């Protein structure tokens, strides 16, 4: 029993888990508002991270200028993707829409590899890298920063949906598109806004991960890990997505601990979430907080 390692991994899991939670949250946002399962979520992270990286290294822009530009860019990018690619698909069968997002992710992934190459790039120092000593543990400041940013984004999202007028419009649209439309909500702009917000939030997460680990195409695996998280939490529950992300993050690191201490299989932490995914689908397919689909005939 190596408690030092275990605690270190648990802290790791907490940090990664909140990030998964943020990404899962933006995934669920698109799903709830537009009924689109977005397979390109991870690529949104990646694009955000690369844009920020380009601004910071190529154009030598300071971080506090580069970050807002990145966010503004991603906001417009989300709207553009929705208008150009997803809007023509409204009314098409759901599998076509899913397929479009799968194709989008291939295109983005390959285009980014083409532009930036396959080797990971270190992110410029944004903060002085030090460790904070907390309860006898050495925790890097980037981790603390990542945790703070993630929690801030979650709170922001909660505020947006609970209080702001636009958030209410979005919830109304998610509840029933036709009724929302008859109440004067522009469903089109809600759809565009859902993509814009989702892209922006993903970009923040992408930059945070990039600051910690550097930028590489491996970032888009966050988009895949979103599925276990979102299914665990319930596909249509934003709070559930956060909880699901946290659990998956912790679980990954616990799996790594078990692996390195007892099993020595190697690589277990990468597949563990998918085993969990299959098990959830078997026993509790609508997740912890998802609404069960009951249909009236």
């Amino acid at each position, binding site marked *: 029993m190596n408690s030092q390692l275990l605690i270190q991994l648990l802290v790791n899991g907490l940090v990664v888990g909140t990030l998964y939670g943020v990404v899962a949250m933006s995934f669920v946002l698109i799903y709830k508002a537009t009924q689109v399962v977005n397979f390109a979520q991870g690529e949104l992270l990646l694009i955000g991270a690369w844009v920020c990286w380009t601004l910071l290294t190529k154009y030598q822009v300071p971080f506090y200028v580069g970050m807002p530009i990145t966010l503004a860019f991603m906001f417009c990018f989300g709207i553009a993707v929705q208008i150009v690619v997803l809007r023509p698909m409204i009314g098409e069968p759901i599998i076509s829409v899913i397929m479009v997002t*799968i194709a989008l992710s*291939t295109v983005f992934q390959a285009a980014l590899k083409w532009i930036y190459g396959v080797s990971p790039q270190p992110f410029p120092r944004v903060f002085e890298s030090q460790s904070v000593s907390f309860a006898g543990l050495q925790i890097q400041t980037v981790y603390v920063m990542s945790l703070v940013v993630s929690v801030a984004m979650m709170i922001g999202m909660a505020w947006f949906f609970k209080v702001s007028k636009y958030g209410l419009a979005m919830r109304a649209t998610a509840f029933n598109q036709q009724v929302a439309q008859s109440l004067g909500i522009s469903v089109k702009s809600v759809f565009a806004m859902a993509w814009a917000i989702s892209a922006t939030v993903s970009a923040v997460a992408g930059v945070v991960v990039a600051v910690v680990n550097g930028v590489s195409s491996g970032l888009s695996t966050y988009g895949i890990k979103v599925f276990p998280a979102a299914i665990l939490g319930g596909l249509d529950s934003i709070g559930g997505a956060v909880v699901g992300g946290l659990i998956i993050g912790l679980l990954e690191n616990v799996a790594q601990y078990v692996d390195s201490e007892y099993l020595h299989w190697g690589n277990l932490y990468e597949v563990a979430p998918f085993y969990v995914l299959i098990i959830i689908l078997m026993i509790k*397919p609508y997740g912890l907080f998802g609404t069960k689909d009951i249909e009236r005939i």
Partner: protein
Amino acid sequence: MATPSIIPAGDFRTSYAADTTIFPTPMSRNAALAGIVLVCFAPLLLSEYWLSILIQIGIYGIAALGLNILVGFTGQISIGHAAFFLLGAFTSAYISNTLPIPVFFAIPLAGLLTALIGLVFGLPAARLKGLYLVIATLAAQYILLDFFSRAEWFSGGSVPAMAQPFSLFGYVLRGDRQYFYVVLAYVLASYLLVTNLMRTRDGRALVAVRDHYLSAEIMGINLTKYRTLSFGLAAFFAGIAGALYAHYQLVVSNEGFGIERSIIFLAMVIIGGTGSIMGTLMGTAFVVLLPESMEWLSAGLKGSAIDRALSLNNNLTFLREIAIGVIIILFLIFEPDGLAHRWRQIKTYWKLYPFSH
């Protein structure tokens, strides 16, 4: 599916059997038979390069056919098809290497085993409606590939597994020219099988599940049974195709069967036309020929200004991926019924020429 092909005047169908016949006119039947006979002569006429492309189209065509049963006829998506393909390849190699079973029987056996494993992943999702199968197959893709890289007894782990060449009653088939006929036989058998399946009650039940699952259920169709059946069939054909691939390449490795390959299988189905059996083959040919044609193009552009500006040759793999993705999106937006639909339109155009109506 959108527009039925033009039937000659005076050709009335007076029975259900006539309506569901595979070849509506003697002409179309003769053309199909002539086509098959022509293809039989391909190994004598074509170069090794073109033959290998034909074999690829055949092998991937079988896998894509399986996926089309799932996507086109039952309205579910799988993005773990490449993993099942690979599972079939490893299983067949393993069976023929370790058990006293000849390759001839190992291939269908691998298909059955792949279908069984597929059901383990598909069964939980088949109970649910909507997009759960996509997510379950996503998990299958990662779990299976992880298993292959781990299980040394089964797939050799990091070392590629060896597969034996195809043999028939002690006679070993060597080289593309002989193996071509094996692939051709399997392609014909599986396309005939699926065409006939779609003419039966079970095939119509699958389509009913796709079109409106509630009505289908009310009409007495067991949703779970048919979703499971179609997923099992999809995995079965993936397994068969994978086994054929294993005994064609003679080595099997994890390399190149990630999620990108699953997306390429989906591209074949979409480009060919979801729910069109012959379209699947067209789509497969399109997707197999696309990277080849890009290679010719970039070879042609080698040294030119465009090549130097974009460094095409070094980035060909990425360009291929971009092209695949863009083509899927364009087809979904502008031609959702795929090449099969376009083909029907061309046929109709020539039949009615010079009058368009």
